[in-house]
């Protein structure tokens, strides 16, 4: 199932009305992502990385064209269906961690599972497993304000993977972290990718992240400018060049 297509966009265009003008955030984007990929959307600010990530995450809809995620057309999903898709199959990691401040680490990671019909026992096991993955099992009872930036992002990763999603979408996950924490975070995600087969899609302009990517999709002015694959040794082989 390695070649199973999880994400497919066809002529995806997103336009934001800005008063009398329109801002074209994405233009005719065609992209396919397969199961198990560790890919990144790379580009300068305003190139459309986050917009594309949001549409793939069913948080937004395309203006024209289509985005298909796990066989579901994002643009035709109802609010409820989109919420279900996010809850069951998509994990999110945000630049600013977005942990729920009044919850403990355990409760933050448990949250997506509360929306699924799982027993308390099952939830506890999954949460502790996820926390083991990010080496934070001993901080289960801590509140987010008692954690460092790196620890907070690891909690966010645990929250994203706890439900065993098919896709994890990470929006600038290392932007608020120092080099050492960035490395730890990326290594953790890389391990999850290789051991659990979870598909990761990043948006980033951080060189540190780019070094870890197996696939680098460069966006410029809302278009895919370059799509490159890297072998595990780091050797580049161009898959799709669209200057």
């Amino acid at each position, binding site marked *: 199932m390695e070649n199973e297509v999880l994400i497919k966009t066809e002529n995806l265009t997103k336009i934001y009305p800005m008063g009398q003008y329109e801002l074209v955030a994405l233009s005719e984007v065609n992209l396919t992502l397969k199961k198990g990929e560790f890919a990144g959307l790379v580009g300068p600010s305003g190139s459309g990385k986050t917009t594309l990530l*949001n549409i793939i*995450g069913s*948080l*937004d809809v395309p203006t024209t064209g289509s985005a298909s995620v796990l066989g579901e057309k994002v643009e035709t999903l109802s*609010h*409820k269906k989109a*919420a*279900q898709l*996010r*809850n*069951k199959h998509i994990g*999110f990691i*945000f630049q*600013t961690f*977005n942990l*729920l*401040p*009044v*919850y403990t680490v355990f*409760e933050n990671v448990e*949250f*997506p599972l*509360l*929306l699924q019909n799982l027993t308390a026992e099952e939830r506890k096991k999954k949460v502790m497993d996820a926390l083991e993955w990010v080496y934070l099992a001993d901080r289960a009872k801590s509140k987010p304000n008692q954690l460092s930036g790196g620890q907070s992002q690891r909690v966010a990763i645990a*929250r994203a993977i706890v439900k065993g999603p098919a896709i994890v979408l990470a929006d600038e996950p290392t932007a608020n972290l120092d080099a050492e924490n960035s490395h730890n975070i990326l290594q953790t995600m890389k391990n999850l990718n290789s051991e659990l087969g979870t598909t990761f899609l990043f948006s980033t302009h951080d060189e540190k992240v780019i070094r870890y990517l197996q696939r680098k999709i460069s966006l410029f002015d809302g278009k895919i400018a370059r799509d490159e694959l890297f072998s595990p040794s780091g050797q580049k082989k161009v898959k799709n060049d669209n200057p």
Partner: protein
Amino acid sequence: MIIPKLAVRNILGAGIRTWLNVIVLSFAFVAIITTQGLLEGMNEQAAQAMIDTQYGGGQYWHENYDPFDPLSLQDAHGVIPGDLKRMVDRGEATPLLIIQGNIYPNGRIRTILLKGISPAQSIITLPSHFLAQSDGEIPALIGSRMAKSTGLKVGDYVTMQWRDARGTFDAQDVRIVQVMKTTVQSIDNSQIWIPLQKLQQLAGMEDEATLVIINKTAQNATAVAGWNFKTPDYLLKDIRDMVQSKAIGSTIIYFILLFLAMLAIFDTQILSIFRRRKEMGTLMALGLTRGKVIQLFTLEGAMHGVLAALAAALYGIPLLAYFARIGWKLPSNTDSYGFAIGEKLFPTFSAGLVLGTTLLVLIITTIVSFLPTRKISKLKPTDALRGKLT
């Protein structure tokens, strides 16, 4: 069940913000119930005092009797009918004869109502037994207000003038045998109580009465020709109307308190929605629908009301129970308000009042909590994640 669980987690997790709101709202609960309890207490206390000392279980009025027309008194008397006489003989009723007269305390004329009552009666709590004297003098009972306004005291003699059934004026001295202290002004001001038989004899109205008061426990009053039965509800209508007129002020306080409490909830909700935009976006990204987010925030607001009710119960029940037991000492001039309340007002906190107020505050809290959350229905998850409120 996930939303209530999350709401509980959120409001407990919010710490001091939650508890400040809860305390303010609980004050409102207790204050609203207290003011309403005082009003109910005033109503009940006044009604009970009137029943005990004046109205009993109702009154049969002579058909010509109109308490608001003093001129009607001349003709408002008649022989006590057989049915009522039998009730009186069985101790189930007591007749009252009322005629107009004057007294001359310290040489000044004062118009009064002369009321004749049986010294042996026990239908009302008037201390009529003081009138059971047979030394040839006419014993008279007056209230403390009457004593104060006329300067009369126990043992004093005062000349009393009246007009008998044939229209003849006559006069005689009466001796004040007791000054009674009563909360009920309508048995005190400008009234002199003397033995019924004596008054009947002086007025030439043998076996006659103006009205007959029946026992509080008497069942179903029967119709008596020439006499109209007035129920306690009818007799208490004026006092209840008066209490109701005083209730306007209390209602204003009620709504001001409610408004202040709701303002606190509304502000908290507005603040929550502005401060927690990112959280809303995160919740949506994690799989909560917009509707569920609205439910969550509404429930959080409404739960302030529930917690406030619990907090109010915690300190309010012992406080109000103590208050209901010791009463509220009224200022000395309360006597002139026109209520038969006494020196202390004892609030009444009925189950209906407590439950009704609690329910009302909870419903309004929920509505007030819901109103600001409607903004969430227009919120795009992507904007929320960026901390924008569309």
